[in-house]
């Protein structure tokens, strides 16, 4: 679906992309990782036809720079930093839907699934929304159309665990008919979400590996956690993951989205001294579990 041949990009004397060769097939879910300055955002901007570059890019046989509307009509993009748009939310939805031939109601519906009630913020300027609301709206705009390629720059960074669960469900619904490229500084943020990892450093691809894909995007883990004693900080953190405790505040139970389990365990590592027992059980079907 995407082919980059000897793709290079220079800013004055600095070489930001250095001879990238890449083939990405339909249905692949790629984590694009690397430190700041590795070239992730520049690669995205080249794929979106926003930068001129040396070498060749083709997306479904078309060049993003010279055939912009044809290529971008099939791409949903979520930026890392929301743009400071003063226009009302309603107009942003209408504008993007009109350009990409999408149904604005579909965008509203996806926003609603992510926990964002568009009707109540339709007249509010986009710039006045909270970070999480902006992120949900941009995700809804990207997923609210039939894009074959989803390019997302740290899309879940500002989402709460509940919204992240739904976000993974939304990605799961698209996984067979869309290619996803998800950028992150940290592999643990996105590892369970993808089936291929590409690491960039100084404008080059330094790692390109397939990932075992045993847990589906829509998978769920039932979690039971036994704390040595009740702790306010742990309780507050687990409450954000919608966990509930017994009367003593020692036994906690809840559900973790499959792609979020590394992040969950990473969060728990801060409280490792408090944890006496931890059990994660994958829910494989209605009523069935596998530990």
């Amino acid at each position, binding site marked *: 679906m995407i082919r980059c041949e000897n793709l290079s990009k220079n800013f004055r004397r600095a070489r930001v992309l250095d001879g990238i060769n890449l083939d990405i097939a339909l249905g692949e879910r790629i984590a694009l990782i690397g430190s700041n300055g590795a070239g992730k955002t520049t690669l995205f*901007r080249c794929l*979106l036809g*926003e*930068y*001129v570059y040396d070498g060749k890019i083709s997306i479904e046989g078309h060049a993003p720079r010279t055939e*912009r*509307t*044809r*290529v*971008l*009509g099939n*791409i949903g*993009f979520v*930026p890392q*930093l*929301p*743009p*400071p*748009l*003063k*226009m*009302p939310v309603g*107009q942003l939805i209408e*504008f*993007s839907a*009109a*350009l*990409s031939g999408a149904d604005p109601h579909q965008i509203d519906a996806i926003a609603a699934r992510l926990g964002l009630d568009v009707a109540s913020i339709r007249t509010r*300027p986009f710039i006045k929304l909270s970070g999480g609301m902006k992120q949900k709206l*941009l995700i809804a705009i990207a997923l609210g159309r039939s894009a074959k390629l989803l*390019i997302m720059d740290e899309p879940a960074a500002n989402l709460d665990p509940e919204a992240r669960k739904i976000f993974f469900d939304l990605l799961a619904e698209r996984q067979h008919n869309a290619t996803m490229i998800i950028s992150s500084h940290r592999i643990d943020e996105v590892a369970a979400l993808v089936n291929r990892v590409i690491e960039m450093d100084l404008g080059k691809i330094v790692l390109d590996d397939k990932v075992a894909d045993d847990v589906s995007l829509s998978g769920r883990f039932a979690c039971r956690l036994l704390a040595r004693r009740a702790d306010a900080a742990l309780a507050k953190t687990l409450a954000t993951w919608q966990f509930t405790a017994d009367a003593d505040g020692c036994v906690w139970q809840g559900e973790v989205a499959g792609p979020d389990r590394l992040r969950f365990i990473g969060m728990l590592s801060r409280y490792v001294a408090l944890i006496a027992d931890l059990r994660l059980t994958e829910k494989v079907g209605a009523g069935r579990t596998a530990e």
Partner: protein
Amino acid sequence: MKQLWLSARLDIVESLRARWFMIYTAVFGGIVALLFLFGLTESRVLGFIGLSRLLVTYIQLTMAILPIFVLITTVRSVAGDREAGVYEYLLSLPVSLGAWFWGKILGRYLVVFAPVFLAMLAAVVIALVKGIDVPWDMFGYYTALLAAMAACFLGLGMLISAVARSTDMAQGAAFMTWLVLLLFLDLILLGVMIQGRIAPELAVSIALVNPLQVFRTAALALFDPQLIVLGPAAYVILDTFGATGYKLFALAYPTSLGLVAAGLGFFIFRRGDLP
């Protein structure tokens, strides 16, 4: 066409919510209000009385304010949007670069022209209510002159925005452009002419290249058809163009200059990195 209009509408909505637009509207509305308040329609200067006197003063003030206002606000918002990441997101949507760029110009043109025109229109309406005679030919020509002025400086602003890679650079370049045009109104031209270093015809030609001077002369020509206040330069202008010819030139040249500058800006915008 749909993309062009969507882009234009987007720019209009963004501009209407911007602080600069409120100040811009307040300035021109305020000028008309003040001119009425100070009873300018009652005063008589060079035989001008009533609304024609007010229109002459309004166009002179507009010529001083509009160019720098349009230049600075255009480069600030266009280059500022690029720096802030607005382009990165909006240009990831399937919009052609032509529709985006020209739509932005169209939207901004309406936003820039509307307040100056509506302020002048308000003056006409007040005059009609008060029973003051309205010089319709003058009103029509000044409207066209304002439209040409807005097109000219908007085009120059878009060119500067396309060339400059940062808001600071764009603002600096816009200010320098305005300053150079302002200096060539009188100061530098008069200076070099007094020193006798250039022929008067060349000085007049330079003045005719300067859109600010073209507007000023055209505004003068309406109440001073022989351009007596310009002195000998008037002979060169009137011999070359004729009175009507010059009035048409004063509309066509700045508009063309703005369109050429915008076209060049688009060429540069399309060839380079967008965000």
